[in-house]
């Protein structure tokens, strides 16, 4: 096996593991093809740490005499330190970890080797098919159809094989529209608002160029979502000047003359590379415990992270408001339509659609609006906030989405079936996982990698009853309303569960959370008992009544 060549020293003894808020532990370190394993040999309190190499974001080494120290920074933002006696051993281990954590080939990743220890009850790869989604849609409207125009990924390489489009638009027209949209991402249905029949579509920018090219089919396609005499809104996630400049490179935006029924709103959401910088700055600020208050606040401000959160939430609320309050259809796009576009459309659905606030519904949303919609997970999540290497395509686009969901969750803690841990789990698995779900950049790549055949789906694991119970929100009670979050800065908070997770003692907070759950559980038990007793008493009463003459 090729991994053996990369592992220069498979094992080291007398290694000391340091983690914040834990006492240092001495033990043995082992390297395998995919894991770094540390186990303390203390018999009274054996501790084991398993770390996926793919979770390692960066590694630093230092030497004091012959004692080497390796500092490992993980994609889930944890930082651990290993003291390894012996300079050579330490160097070997460091370079092995480095090599193993930066494997080029996807097929060498752990999901291709992982063999689950659990019984698969439901294959997650087929849990969320667009066909099922369409069936649901068909029961309320017949204005849409399922198109297989992209079945061999030739019309749009980053789209799934099937998409939902207006019924009156045939595949031939779709092919023409695809040529008019960046990367072939023609407008498709993202969400249908049953309450008023309004639709949210998403696409990439139109390729109008400097000479104002138009495409009749494109106009017809998006007009098909409008009620007669009603207007629609195009939400462009770029500022006007950027959209205008895009024309020089062949891109552009929907011009009023050709789209008279559409009103364009530019709601700027930062590009992915800016977001990555913001992410790095925020994590840096959170990891420095020595900051005085002024420095902490100014670093938090300088990261701009919460500004991005606010902008994103505002844009999503805007889209939701257009649909629900203005009763208008919406088309959302930025440039490529694979990042900010998906953030907006998926968040708007969290606000509008109660189904997306259930566990299953949220999973379906992630599959539909992120995985199938072609968010390039592999590029975006290749590195996290500690990477030393020059960034290319990395960006916390998905993490920002999860955090926005968390912010809404904080404001409506009883309206979500899942808890914070569920969101954190998705963040972790997007960056490093034993499951194949987040590998590849789109369905096309996943099909080529044969992921459904060769790897296990995250959903196969998560949806097992044992696992689900960890992610359930005990306060949940279905809420069929649209939930409008407050976007005032005073209402937003730093997501401590992710950013301060490793930087503060969390014992008391966890215990308090447990107590909350106990109170709710106890309440359910008591209610059940009261009901049972009432029934018993009622039966006794009727028995007595019957006995009486």
């Amino acid at each position, binding site marked *: 096996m090729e991994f053996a060549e990369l592992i220069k020293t498979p094992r080291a003894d007398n290694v000391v593991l340091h983690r914040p808020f834990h006492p240092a532990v001495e033990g043995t370190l082992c390297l395998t093809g995919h894991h770094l394993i540390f186990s303390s040999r203390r018999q009274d309190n054996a501790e084991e740490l398993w770390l996926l190499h793919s979770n390692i974001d960066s590694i630093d080494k230092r030497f004091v005499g012959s004692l080497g120290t390796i500092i490992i920074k993980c994609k889930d933002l944890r930082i651990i330190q290993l003291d390894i006696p012996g300079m050579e051993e330490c160097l070997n281990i460091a370079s092995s970890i480095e090599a193993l954590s930066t494997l080029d080939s996807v097929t060498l990743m752990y999901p291709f080797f992982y063999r689950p220890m659990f019984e698969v009850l439901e294959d997650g790869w087929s849990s969320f098919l667009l066909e099922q989604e369409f069936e649901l849609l068909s029961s309320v409207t017949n204005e849409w159809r399922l198109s297989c125009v992209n079945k061999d990924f030739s019309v749009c390489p980053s789209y799934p094989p099937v998409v939902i489009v207006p019924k009156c638009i045939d595949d031939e027209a779709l092919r023409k529209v695809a040529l008019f949209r960046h990367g072939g991402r023609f407008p498709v249905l993202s969400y249908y608002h049953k309450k008023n029949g309004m639709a949210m579509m998403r696409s990439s920018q139109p390729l109008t160029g400097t000479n104002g090219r138009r495409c009749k089919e494109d106009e017809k396609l998006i007009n098909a979502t409008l009620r007669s005499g009603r207007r629609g809104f195009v939400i462009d996630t770029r500022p006007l000047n950027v959209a205008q400049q895009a024309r020089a490179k062949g891109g552009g935006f929907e011009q009023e003359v050709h789209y008279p029924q559409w009103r364009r*709103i530019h*709601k700027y959401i930062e590009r992915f590379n800016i977001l990555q910088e913001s992410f790095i700055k925020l994590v840096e600020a*959170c990891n420095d*415990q020595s*900051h*005085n*208050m*002024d*420095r*902490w*606040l*100014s670093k938090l*401000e300088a990261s*701009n992270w*919460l*500004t991005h959160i*606010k902008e994103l939430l*505002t844009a999503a*609320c*805007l889209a939701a*408001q257009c649909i629900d309050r203005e009763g208008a259809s919406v088309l959302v796009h930025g440039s490529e339509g694979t990042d900010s576009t998906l953030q907006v459309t998926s968040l708007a659905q969290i606000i509008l659609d109660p189904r997306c606030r259930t566990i299953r519904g949220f999973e379906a949303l992630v599959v539909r609006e992120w995985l199938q919609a072609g968010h390039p997970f592999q590029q975006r999540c290749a590195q996290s906030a500690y990477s030393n290497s020059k960034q290319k395509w990395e960006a916390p686009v998905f993490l920002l989405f999860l955090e926005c969901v968390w912010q809404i969750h*904080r*404001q*409506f*803690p*009883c309206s979500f079936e899942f808890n914070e841990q569920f969101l954190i789990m998705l963040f972790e698995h997007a960056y490093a996982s034993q499951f194949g779900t987040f590998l590849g950049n789109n369905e096309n790549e996943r099909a080529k990698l044969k992921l459904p055949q060769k790897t296990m789906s995250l959903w196969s694991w998560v949806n097992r009853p044992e696992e689900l119970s960890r992610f359930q929100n005990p*306060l949940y*009670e279905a*809420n069929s*309303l*649209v*939930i*409008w979050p*407050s*976007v*005032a*800065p*005073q*209402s*937003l908070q*730093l997501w401590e569960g992710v950013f*301060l997770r490793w930087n*503060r*003692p969390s014992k*008391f907070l966890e*215990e*308090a959370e447990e107590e*909350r759950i106990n*109170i*709710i559980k106890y*309440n359910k038990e*008591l*209610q059940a*008992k*009261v009901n049972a*007793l*009432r029934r018993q*008493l009622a039966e*006794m009463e009727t028995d*007595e009544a019957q006995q009486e003459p």
Partner: protein
Amino acid sequence: LLQVEQVKLLDRFSTSNKSLTGTLYLTATHLLFIDSSQRETWILHHHIAAVEKLPLTTSGCPLVIQCKNFRIVHFVVPRERDCHDIYNSLLQLSRTAKYEELYAFSYNPKQNESEQVKGWQLIDLAEEYKRMGVPNAYWQLSDANRDYKICETYPRELYVPRTASKPIIVGSSKFRSKGRFPVLSYYHKNKEAAICRCSQPLSGFSARCLEDEHMLQAISKANPSNRYMYVMDTRPKLNAMANRAAGKGYENEDNYSNIRFQFVGIENIHVMRSSLQKLLEVSGTRGLSVNDFLSGLENSGWLRHVKAVLDAAVFLAKAIAVEGASVLVHCSDGWDRTSQVCSLGALLLDSYYRTIKGFMVLIEKDWISFGHKFSDRCCQLDGDPKEISPVFTQFLESVWNLTEQFPQAFEYNEAFLLQIHEHVHSCQFGNFLGNCQKEREELKLKEKTYSLWPFLLAEQKKYQNPLYNPDFSPELTLLEPNTVSFNFKFWRNMYHQFDRSMHPRQSMFNLIMNTSEQNKQLEEDIKELEAKIRQRNGQSDVVLEKEQEQTAHPAPVALKTPPCFQKEQPPMPVNDAVRTIEGSNTADNRYSELVSEFSKAEPAVVSLEYGVARMTC
């Protein structure tokens, strides 16, 4: 009584000029607004910090009222003359010249005399010192100040080391600002160490006082396990040095044996006042961006100050709990920062102060009895605006920060802290009136007014923390908060208590609280049902018709009387109501950019700063 109709109440933050129309009444004690759906907003005149009349607009004359509990209401009165009348009346009504005119002297909660007396006896400080373990072999009650002869701003009963004789006390008091000589504030039984408090010494550049030196020595000797003691000057070093020029200053380590001197750098009341002012300006801004909020928070310095206070308390508590050393705390006069640090230190050391009753005792001891100048700091009477300072608010905020870090350590909840803050400013009860005990006695507060504490205890269900675990920490084990900067948060529920649109739409806290309350009821029900079943099994022919029905909902409170006690807080809803969505209306949310997309641009917003006729209190 003044009554104006067709008054509009604007939403402070809404960009869509949403408003409620209703009638505004001025009573002798309250301003009352009843909107068209009969919802009432009561504002106590004493709560009013400032009234401002803004320039006339097309819809009428705007009137902005800022309250000490951080409520800001923005009325638009149709006719300018009415507005002017209201404005003038409010100016008069919210300014009080004499204590006897304060609400507490007219407030009648319908208690009889013995209830009133009992209410005042609820908190007994002698009992509290006994609980701590004094008097004992080292500490005794001194009668030196029995007639307020040595120090007017101290209580009559003071505890001092047994070896501190009267001449030492008298001598020491002459060497301390305002006569506030070192006395016991808290005694730690297990460590036999004490928190003592005083004011700054009148040391100037070189003066010394043998009695004062003896006094400190007596304190250090009263601790058999550690003869070193800390002297904590809670001021920044520079301020303390500047005081030397005025004949005041700080202890010279060379003159006192066995002391370790330490500055902890909490800023003075003036810095705190302007810090809060800046904080409120930022948090009150419409259409605030995240970065403006964060930089405003930083520039205000508010969280930095709160952290400084808590850091000092942690230092104090560790000296006692870890080193077993006694600590003497002072600032300048020893009634602001000293009260903050001593009380927070004790709160970290002793879990009793984390109970509802214990917290009342703590406030009575370190704040009320030791002469924190509530009247001046909270501007109860029309006085020197330079004396106003949010020192006590800061203390409550520090406690709130601790409750966030230790959700199970406190018997009380946030609502309790907010309610106390409310009444520190309401002047509805006698506890916080005046600046010191002597003044309170002269005002005969115990005969003429009521104590707040029995009222809080009577409705303590509202203030209980459902997560409280009495066994969270064994008695007298130190609570060790993490004071890394990121642990300190903006206290939204204090500064935006009345801006409902900023709050979570579903309150997890209320839900847990009600569920926990319901659990108790269900436990009762189960007992009752089981008893009935047992009874039936035993004597099946006895009919149990006399069983009382479960108590239904409490009778509705009579309307149209001022909210005597409860402030107009959203009533604790029952379970179903908790889950309803309060702000399911987009207009409640400020997606400011988009509102303007849909509706016509709103008329120019008048900014508060440029209003005419600003009245600051």
